[in-house]
């Protein structure tokens, strides 16, 4: 029996250098090799700013990875060894306030108060009372009830722990983490050992050059994280129903396989999915979902490894359940398409029904910049009026809302000019006028209407010429659809009432 795999589409242009789990971009440039398959998860943890726990054997680069990340991101970093740390190391020396009514802590470069990222190494080796204190640090970003204002990232690392200590290959003193603490880590990641590395990663790791060099962000790691975080917060505000349904289904199926996820963990799984989606430009990819599910279990921290077969089956069933009716899958494929004119063609030609068409319009408008939204709506809205496009009323209403202010523009533009200098024109108007001077006929009139709207609303436009080309392609897509539709209508003898 052959298994049909959901179609994987091309990577969107904006993220073309990074495909989930297959083409890492950032970690090798900061000297971290062998983490190719989990780079997406590490970036997702940076995007959510939720706690991350790495589990791995000694010398697998856990600490190196996390310290390098903080260097590359330019963070005020603290690295504590949980097996050696005393509480005073964390908070500083306490001294009473002059009024003797409260206590302050004497800060040192090692205290946690100014930290932006904290790495708690060997977390599985610390005393239970320290674990309790670390709990509030990991969970609430607080120590002794006091909030650590700047703290963004809470990371921890540990050696694998075995429930049955003393077995071969186990780490003496690395105890299972308290379940309540472990459940606070969004991702619990097992890092690869030598035997699991590819040839290239092995060669790079074996090469001692560059050791001790400060990691620098040369590939836009910070930019990726910031853009991802922005998108993530947007998705968190209005999470796609499919991500929620995936989490519910996967958790239920895992529960049926006697692998329990707490309700909090199910919620966390959805957050994790949204973070990975944000890195994928808002798109839901099957491979990213599988990876996210795999590394969202806290059980490894207390020595229980999920059965890979069970996880894989739960993922497959949940993915198929969410996307089985085809509409979600189609919407997902549409979201992968970056060019607005192709989005329009796809909606007009392939939308399975009006409701899905409306969802597609809503999705497109959310993902496009304001200027591109305007171009998209100004082209598609008239087409939905002229012919019955497979877009429901909600979709048409959304298009109308965006298009309405473009149809009539009457605005005052203002700019500053140097006194005593030559008289100037509005700089943006001049830039757009140059593009308009190269256009003729109807195309010129449409472009002018759109450009005036952009000027009136001060919308950002990097390359007006390319933008106008894109708008014209959107118009052409609608025109062709109308022509085909009218030809079809003519040949079948149907006639509109109007």
């Amino acid at each position, binding site marked *: 029996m052959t298994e049909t795999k959901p179609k994987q589409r091309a990577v969107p242009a904006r993220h073309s250098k990074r495909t989930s789990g297959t083409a890492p971009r950032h970690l090798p440039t900061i000297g971290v090799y062998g983490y190719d398959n989990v780079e997406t998860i590490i970036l997702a943890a940076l995007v959510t700013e939720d706690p991350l726990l790495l589990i791995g054997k000694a010398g697998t680069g856990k600490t190196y990875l996390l310290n390098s990340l903080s260097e590359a991101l330019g963070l005020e970093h603290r690295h504590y060894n949980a097996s050696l740390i005393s509480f005073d190391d964390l908070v500083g020396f306490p001294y009473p306030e002059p009024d003797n009514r409260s206590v302050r802590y004497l800060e040192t470069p090692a205290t946690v108060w100014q930290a932006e990222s904290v790495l708690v190494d060997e977390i599985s080796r610390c005393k239970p009372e320290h674990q309790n204190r670390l709990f509030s640090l990991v969970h609430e970003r607080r120590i002794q009830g006091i909030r650590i204002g700047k703290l963004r990232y809470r990371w921890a690392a540990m050696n694998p722990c075995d429930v049955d200590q003393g077995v071969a290959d186990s780490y003496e003193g690395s105890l299972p983490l308290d379940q309540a603490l472990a459940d606070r880590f969004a991702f619990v990641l097992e890092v690869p050992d030598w035997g699991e590395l590819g040839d290239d990663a092995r060669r790079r790791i074996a090469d001692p050059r560059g050791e001790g060099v400060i990691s620098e962000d040369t590939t836009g790691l910070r930019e990726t994280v910031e853009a991802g975080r922005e998108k993530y917060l947007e998705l968190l505000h209005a999470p796609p129903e499919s991500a929620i349904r995936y989490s519910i289904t996967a958790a239920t199926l895992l529960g049926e396989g006697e692998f329990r996820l707490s309700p909090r963990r199910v919620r966390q799984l959805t957050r994790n999915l949204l973070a990975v989606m944000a890195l994928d430009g808002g798109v839901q990819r099957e491979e990213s979902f599988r990876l996210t599910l795999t590394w969202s279990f806290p059980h490894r921290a207390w020595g229980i490894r999920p059965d890979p077969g069970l996880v894989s089956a739960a993922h497959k069933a949940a993915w198929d359940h969410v996307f089985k009716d085809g509409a979600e899958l189609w919407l997902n494929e549409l979201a992968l398409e970056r060019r607005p004119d192709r989005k329009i063609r796809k909606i007009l030609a392939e939308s399975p029904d009006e409701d899905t068409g409306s969802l597609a319009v809503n999705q497109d408008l959310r993902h496009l910049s304001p200027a591109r939204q305007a171009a998209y709506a100004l*082209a598609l*809205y*008239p*087409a*939905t*009026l*002229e012919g*019955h496009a497979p877009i429901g*009323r909600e979709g*048409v*209403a959304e298009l*109308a*809302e965006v298009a*309405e202010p473009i*149809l*009539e*523009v*009457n*605005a*005052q*533009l*203002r*700019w*500053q*000019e*140097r*006194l*005593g200098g030559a008289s*100037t*024109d*509005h700089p943006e*108007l001049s830039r757009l006028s140059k593009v308009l001077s190269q256009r*003729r*006929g*109807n*195309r010129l*009139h*449409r472009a*002018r*209407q759109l450009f*005036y709207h952009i*000027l*009136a609303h001060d919308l950002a436009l990097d390359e007006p010429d390319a933008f106008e080309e894109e708008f014209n392609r959107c*118009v052409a897509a*609608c*025109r062709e659809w*109308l022509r085909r539709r009218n030809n079809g209508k003519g040949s079948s003898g149907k006639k*509109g*009432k*109007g």
Partner: protein
Amino acid sequence: MIAAESYSCFHGGATPWQWLRDLFPWVVWNTGGPRSRTRFTWVASSVLAGHLPVQWSRELTVGIPGKENLDLVARAYHTLENLGYRDPDEAAQALPLIPGHRLHCRRVKIGSRRHSGKGPRAAERFLFEALILGRCSQTFYDPCKPVIWTNNRLNRGLALYKPDRFLDED
């Protein structure tokens, strides 16, 4: 320091600043005032009015004149009953000239002299406009939409536009 008054005597009434400016016109003099000025220009263009080839044509203007907050819903149902229709959708099917395609709509003011509600076929005319207003959302008219009558909807004045040649090639 030379008093401004004595300067005026020497240089035909010009103030010292004016005199210096005239003497060294290429120097940008900082008088402490703003060194830039704000300029304004207007951009105006419409595809709903005017004579552009991509103009949207105004198909209809609908609106029921009279005082606002008048109970037009009651009047509409009364008219519907008088004309022998069971419900608004049946009337919309039966009345001629009800547009059969979607149209863009925009609010306009309705002159009080538009059909006064008197004269022959005034009831049909009123019902015609009420049916269209009942199918218009804030932004577009949809013939497939059920007629929904509310006083807010019926008290609007709307111009209905068709995109016509907007998407056409030259």
